[in-house]
């Protein structure tokens, strides 16, 4: 990898998360779950949440599905970021926080890839807890709920 742009987009940590995704798997009898699709490439992701005893704090969160390095890495990072937070906190999680974690400049198309996990997680929490949907979704079905 001698190309600096290439090096910056597919930096070590992205590839590491992609190759060794954290929280990859399924939670049986999850307290919250949702499935999201990226209509541009047909990628699908499912997110599963288990709450702690307070019924609010995320005790465990996992994802399954297929996707590109950016979407898989971003979702993997998201799993780490959100474990231990409350549903409400995650619903309010600003996408900039996740983007900072990803730490590479994204074009609009790849932004959709990066946001697929977060949007799907917020939809899962919305369905289980009635927490607010993300900006783009509020009113506008940025994501087909399946």
């Amino acid at each position, binding site marked *: 990898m001698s190309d600096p742009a290439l090096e910056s987009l597919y930096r070590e940590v992205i590839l590491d998360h992609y190759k060794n995704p954290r929280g990859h798997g399924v939670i049986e009898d999850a307290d919250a779950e949702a499935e999201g699709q990226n209509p541009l490439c047909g990628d699908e992701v499912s997110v599963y949440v288990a709450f702690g005893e307070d019924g609010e704090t995320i005790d465990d969160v996992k994802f399954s599905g297929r996707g590109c390095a950016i979407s898989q890495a971003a979702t993997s990072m998201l799993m780490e970021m959100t474990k231990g937070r409350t549903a409400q906190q995650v619903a309010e999680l600003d996408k900039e926080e996740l983007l900072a974690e990803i730490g590479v400049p994204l074009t*609009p*198309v790849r932004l959709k890839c990066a946001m697929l996990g977060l949007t799907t997680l917020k939809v899962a929490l919305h369905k289980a807890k009635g927490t607010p949907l993300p900006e783009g979704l509020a*009113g506008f079905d940025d994501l087909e709920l399946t």
Partner: protein
Amino acid sequence: MAVTAHAKLDARALRRDFPIFEQEMHGKPLAYLDSANSSQKPRQVLDAVDRFYETSYANVHRAVHLLGERATSALEHARVRVRELLNAPDAREVIFVRNATEGINLVAYSWGLNNLGPGDAVVVTELEHHSNFVPWQYIARRQGAEFLMLTIDENGDPDLSELEAVARDHTVKVVATNLVSNSLGTIHDLAPLVSWAHEQGAIFVCDAAQAAPHMKVDVRAIGADFVAISGHKMCGPSGIGALWGRGELLRAMEPFLLGGHMINSVRVDKTTWGELPHKFEAGTSPIAEAVGLGAAVDYLEAVGLDAIEAHEHELAAYALGRLAEVPGITLYGPPAERRAGVVSFNLGDIHPHDVAQILDLQGVAIRAGHHCCQPLMQKLGVAATNRASFYLYTLPEEIDQLVDGLHAVRKVFA
């Protein structure tokens, strides 16, 4: 609709932006008085389109590569410019279409095929352009609904006293009218009709094709549910227009055109629709045309829509005065302060085709015909009229050229 005099445009200077005026017609200076039919294009718009093709062209939305990104962001920037022009709440409510006609058909089909049925009524006015008349007539008939037409007075205002009877006898589901008439030039006050429509639980569809080029169109102030415009009438390229619709209505609607891009997922047993605006934009978009429309919005806003409106009122007043000098002329429509830059007339019983042809030989381009308003023509008791229409590049001396031309027409038929 008062003339706001503070912003004044310099038509002579603006005219230099339009390459079409660099030539003569039949050896005479071109007096292009057919802008309500379609406007000419400034170099700024043509250049923006060329630059786009030369540096940023690719298909949109789908591509990961740099050209695809540039093209997508150019298209979406144009959408934002149209949203701003119309003061629409959200750019995703702006659907790119070919022209206002397609925008209205989109609503007539997509909303009408799923919401109209026997016992329902669609209400239009006698002053509608065929594009806001025939789609409703056709879809209403197909659905077994009633198609009703409000009569108008000589200013072009619909007779609101008919509304009570309409409401009593019908379930009104759609009210569709223009904001500015392309044949009489009338600028309508839509407020009473919009509230009446909403009291009936009907949607209000506003044909702003003739309004958007000439004045500030604010979809929130109008209170309409759908508003359609055409790019080619407002300094933009042909092949592009926009439909604005309320998000909640658009989201609830079935799509209209089906195909690539407007889907979420496709399976033989089940297909789901994409988000707004994509759900209504099947197939490859009119990409460069949208970019050109965005550049046209830039151009119009730089000139100032208030200034354009004021300029047109001035020209309309001047034209009505000068045309009244021509013996045997009949002028149609409201007083100058209530009209956009459009003047329809007949010259005795000389057929408009002959009037327009003789004017053309003198470099004056006007339109002769029914202006896609046959119901109005039936009302006026004529087959056709002449129509001179003005825009930001129109000069008073072009109106003088028209008047001189009309005298020449009279001589031929003397």
